[in-house]
């Protein structure tokens, strides 16, 4: 934390609503407790403190969700959010994977944030965000519960994202009626944005079409200390020290921040010229200390001749999209729905299925379900 702590605290209190300030400050302090100086992470405490919510197959505000194990080997889970239809207001278990009904249904694969170490697909903040996206874009969202650092370093998160992409692409029930193909978008915030980029990269030449990337405050970096990093260090919830910690936790040991995962257009990056890369919508917050890297990313895409739209939200801090209590939130949400809707040629309801595939690392106790039931029975027995 920089000197003149009080000055810092006061500045950021002035630019965000009070409840946002409370939420993000709470995260900041809790996360401080979790990162150990030796590079390890207090995962037990992290899971305890993280507010989680279960999936709910009963529609709430027109959205229902269910969890799916998409890869047994890595226990990769994703949470799927779908809009409840007028005909089927109360879907039953057999109909969770009923084919999507519209001509064109966008499916958004969402990667939650958390700097590669925090949060899960079933974190309350991301469950809420995904549900909003469904309602907003009339989409199916697949939220991926990818493996996190420091227990699982690069490239685990990208591998999981790739697995999810292949899975989504191969679901017949997600195919749009018009062309019997799945209309896929990749989206993510913070580390999730970084993952979205790299998964899109992997999809090139694979035969899987990604129609667009939506990157919210994507997490990029590099060895150099940029002007924005120095100017904004510690001022709006985030410090350079914590950014460094998370990169050290995610990148392979011994690698520096010019590794291509962190710095895709840096010295070790791959050129995207002439490549069939999806169009991108990149949202940058004016009070995010890593904005120079995010802007460099946008430049990199432009220089490679790729289609990219930048939304620079001057007065926004990190996490502004978590609570719908500010203008930036609504601006960005509008842009996202336009971004996803633009490929809907039919005048039909642009039911974009935003599938946020949240890859979860869950200890799946597959066998012995009977034992678990028996155990529960034991609690209920009053002998």
């Amino acid at each position, binding site marked *: 934390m920089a000197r003149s702590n009080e000055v810092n605290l006061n500045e950021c209190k002035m630019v965000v609503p009070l409840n946002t300030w409370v939420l993000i*400050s709470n995260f900041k302090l809790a996360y401080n407790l979790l990162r150990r100086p030796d590079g390890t992470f207090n995962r037990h405490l992290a899971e305890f403190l993280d*507010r989680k919510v279960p999936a709910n197959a009963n529609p709430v505000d027109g959205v229902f969700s269910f969890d799916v194990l998409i890869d047994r080997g890595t226990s990769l889970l994703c949470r799927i959010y779908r809009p409840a239809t007028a005909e089927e207001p109360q879907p039953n278990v057999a109909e969770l994977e009923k084919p999507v009904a519209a001509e064109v249904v966008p499916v958004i694969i969402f990667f939650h944030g958390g700097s590669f170490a925090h949060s899960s697909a079933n974190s309350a903040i991301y469950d809420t965000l995904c549900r909003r996206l469904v309602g907003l874009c009339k989409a199916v969202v697949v939220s991926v519960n990818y493996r996190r650092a420091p227990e699982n370093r690069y490239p685990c998160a990208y591998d999981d994202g790739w697995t999810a992409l292949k899975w989504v692409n191969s679901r017949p029930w997600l195919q749009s009626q018009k062309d019997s193909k799945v209309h896929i978008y990749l989206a993510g915030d913070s580390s999730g944005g970084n993952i979205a980029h790299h998964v899109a990269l992997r999809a090139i030449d694979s035969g899987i079409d990604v129609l667009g990337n939506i990157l919210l405050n994507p997490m990029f970096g590099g060895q150099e200390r940029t002007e924005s990093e120095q100017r904004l260090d510690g001022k709006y919830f985030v410090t350079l020290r914590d950014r460094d910690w998370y990169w050290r936790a995610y990148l392979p040991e011994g690698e520096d921040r010019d590794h291509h995962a962190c710095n895709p257009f840096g010295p070790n990056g791959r050129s995207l010229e002439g490549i069939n890369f999806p169009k991108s919508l990149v949202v940058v917050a004016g009070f995010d200390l890593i904005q120079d890297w995010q802007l460099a990313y946008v430049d990199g895409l432009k220089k490679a001749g790729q289609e990219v739209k930048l939304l620079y939200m001057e007065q926004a801090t990190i996490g502004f999209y978590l609570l719908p209590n500010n203008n930036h939130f609504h601006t960005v949400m509008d842009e996202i729905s336009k971004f996803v809707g633009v490929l809907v040629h039919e005048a039909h309801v642009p039911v974009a299925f935003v599938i946020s595939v949240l890859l979860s690392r869950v200890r799946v106790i597959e066998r012995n379900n009977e034992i678990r039931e028996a155990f529960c029975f034991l609690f209920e027995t009053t002998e």
Partner: protein
Amino acid sequence: MVLYDDSATLAGSCSGSGSSSSFSSKPPPMQQQQQQDIDDLLAGAGYKVRSSELRKVAHRLERLETAMVNSPADFSQLASDTIHYNPSDLASWVDSLLSEFAEPPTYPSEFIMDPVTNQTVANDVWTTTNPNMPQVHQNISYEQQSLNNQLTVVTAMEEDSGIRLVHMLMTCAECVQRGDFSLATSFLKDMQGLLTRVNTVCGIGKVAGHFIDALSRRIFQGIGGGSINGGSAFENEILYHHFYEACPYLKFAHFTANQAILEAFDGHDCVHVVDFNLMHGLQWPALIQALALRPGGPPLLRLTGIGPPSPDGRDSLREIGLRLAELARSVNVRFAFRGVAASRLEDVKPWMLQVNPKESVAVNSIMQLHRLLGSDSNLNSPIENGS
């Protein structure tokens, strides 16, 4: 690190409650009033904070951050050693973390109880000139301060007594185990004295009070003879049930034993469980249920329960067997029960168990075998005798 979360579910992977759009389902009627004041947006993020308290929570978060920055030593302690209460109740969570710091209050206008009595700091606060404060205010602040001092003294003493109680309890228990009852009795007297200085309604005082009672009963029965189980059979059954519900240890032992038994019985159609101490048979409903659900259908299950003869003419073994049989019938498991009454395990001979050569047998012994070890060096233990 101790974790406590009253909203944790059995499954473990979800610590919130209710559906994703409402934080808590079915609040009790008296909390409705407070419920309406909860900030909706934070509720969607999994946190329960009253709108009216937002500013206060924000203030506390700031102080926590300052404290974390200013005392890094305490901070790493905080990270590994704190008791964390329900994180959804943000106000309490922040407060509990704040109380872990020895940091004196930084704002003279706030009167916060400092768990570590620091006389000089208190004086500084009093003598800090604060031109904005009117004179009247300062007089009040003096009284409040001295009251605070008294309160902080009590708090420190209480904490101290609590810790000493714990140490004394441990030492006393060791004395009892060694059989040194006179020393244990003197500890008892000291502990009862300490008890008067702590709050026995809750917390360490309450726990210590119960343990002191139990130890004294143990000591005076040890000296004067007589059985530990002074209560009636009915009382003991109730106590046992409470213990079973409240503590995970026995349940877990039963759970793992049942799992092992289930695995061993896989593929066998005639199975026989011998329970070295049936007690109230609480281990067996789960096994019966699990066998009922196993793929391929349940086997024929025989249960032989060993236990002491009932003192008051009841056949408690048979009663338990009947209840288990009833349960088995309700889940369509063919079941047969035999009770073997014996006051000591070593009195039970293999022929009493009537093991059929064609059946698979599991012997279930939960905390029985240690009793067969000799406690008196003169006598040979039953195990050594080879019974």
